[in-house]
């Protein structure tokens, strides 16, 4: 049984076209390649020590 009040609360306002820039800025752009590069960098640093 759906709790209508709770279900209605799940609907959030959609970003408007003027807010597209903000949406792009808040986009998390980290991917596995970044993580791999970071791990490689850490490994190099440890070897130097």
């Amino acid at each position, binding site marked *: 049984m759906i709790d209508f009040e709770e279900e*209605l609360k799940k609907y959030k306002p959609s970003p408007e076209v003027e807010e597209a820039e903000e949406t792009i800025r808040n986009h998390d752009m980290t991917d596995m390649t970044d993580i791999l590069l970071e791990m490689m960098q850490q490994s190099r640093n440890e070897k130097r020590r």
Partner: protein
Amino acid sequence: MECLNCGTKLQQGDICPNCGMDVSVYKKIMHMSNFYYNEGLAKANVRDFTGAIESLKKSLYFNKKNIVARNVLGLVYFEMGETVSALSEWVISKNFRAERNPADKYLRELQKNPGQLEAINQTIKKYNQAIAYCQEGSEDMAIIQLKKVISMNSKMVRAHQLLALLYMKEGKYENAAKYLKAAEQIDVNNTTTMRYQKELREQMKNVKHKKEDKISYQSGNDTIIQPSHVFREHSITSMVINLLVGVAIGVAITCFLVVPSIRHNMVSDKKAEINEANSTVTTKEQTITSLKSQVKDLKKEAEKAKKEKEASAQRLTSYSKVIEAYAAYIKEDTQTATAALEQVKTEDLDETTKAIYDQTNTELQTKMMDTWYAEGTKAYNSYDYQNAVANLQQVVNVDEQYGEGYALYYLAQSLRRTENLEKALPYYQRVVELYPGSERARTAQMYLDQNPGAAGSTGGSMGSDAESTVTETETMTNTN
């Protein structure tokens, strides 16, 4: 595929041919990204947009620079009516690869039609307004707004779902089913749509059970519902009594329930109409304000362009006048040259033309001074003092020491001889100051002594006495 360390194109092996780095993990990551892209594309092809979004996001999580995956994700968002999310993905995609990117075409298509973009924005605003109405408890208003949203953008899945939810809450299950079916046609495996449909089926089942326990029939505009298994008396008296009681109840229901209900419905309808009208007025006002602002900007631009045009015309005139003056100067037509130079605005000229202007002006002025002085002295010697004054005055205005002060001296003499002794005295004074001890200074001093305080009343007779002295003592000298 390029090496993540040095950017060299990778071969079949797991070692980069250039930097020697082990790229086996990196290659696996790229393969995973491509795998999820293929999965997402397959789901998008069968309109399973929710599944496609999930797979494409995973693909981008492995490789954010997977341009095709990002572009398809944008297309899926656009197909679901999530235009801003679609725009965001295409902009990011274009940022990663500026050349030969289909996202560029998608963005251009949208930007080419500002009306479409404005309509999309209006749809989003109305959708947000509907959510605000839901939060305020004005669900009937929210339904009106959502219907408008769907009429403007029939692909917006979230609007269909919210509208269906509101209808379910109001018990209008058939309407809810209609919008859930529409949402399902856009995105076949949407979990929210499926959850609502399941809920709807249960609700409708309960209603069906309740209906089976009752008999309902239409009486005019009213739906009469009564239990199916009731005791009925079949005698005529009881029938009449029941009939009368029924009529009485009917009248009572009409007076106390139906009429207020109709009134309440009318008031609600009117309120809804007023709110809708207000909403339309607000939209129109926004458009008017925007158009006014555009008109204002255009007027400013037109004014600026007009000023620039005028400035350019003035600049052009200045240049043409410099050329005209220079040409006239070459032909020794000093009058035309001077007239042309007077019309030049030096601030309009560049450095080279300004140098030509300055040179021409200086040379012209020197030439004019020589001409005026020659004309002046010639007139003076011919006793044409009016003409002498006219020419020498111009010389003195520019350089009072011209011709070693003779221009100044002859001007004073000419003025005195044209009965303008008062005007002549300041020039005599300058001769005394600039050339003390000269014959001219002595003569000038004599006239000054004869007219202390520049007394005009005695000037006439004294002037005539002095005249004979000057004509005897002074010899006309033309320094040029």
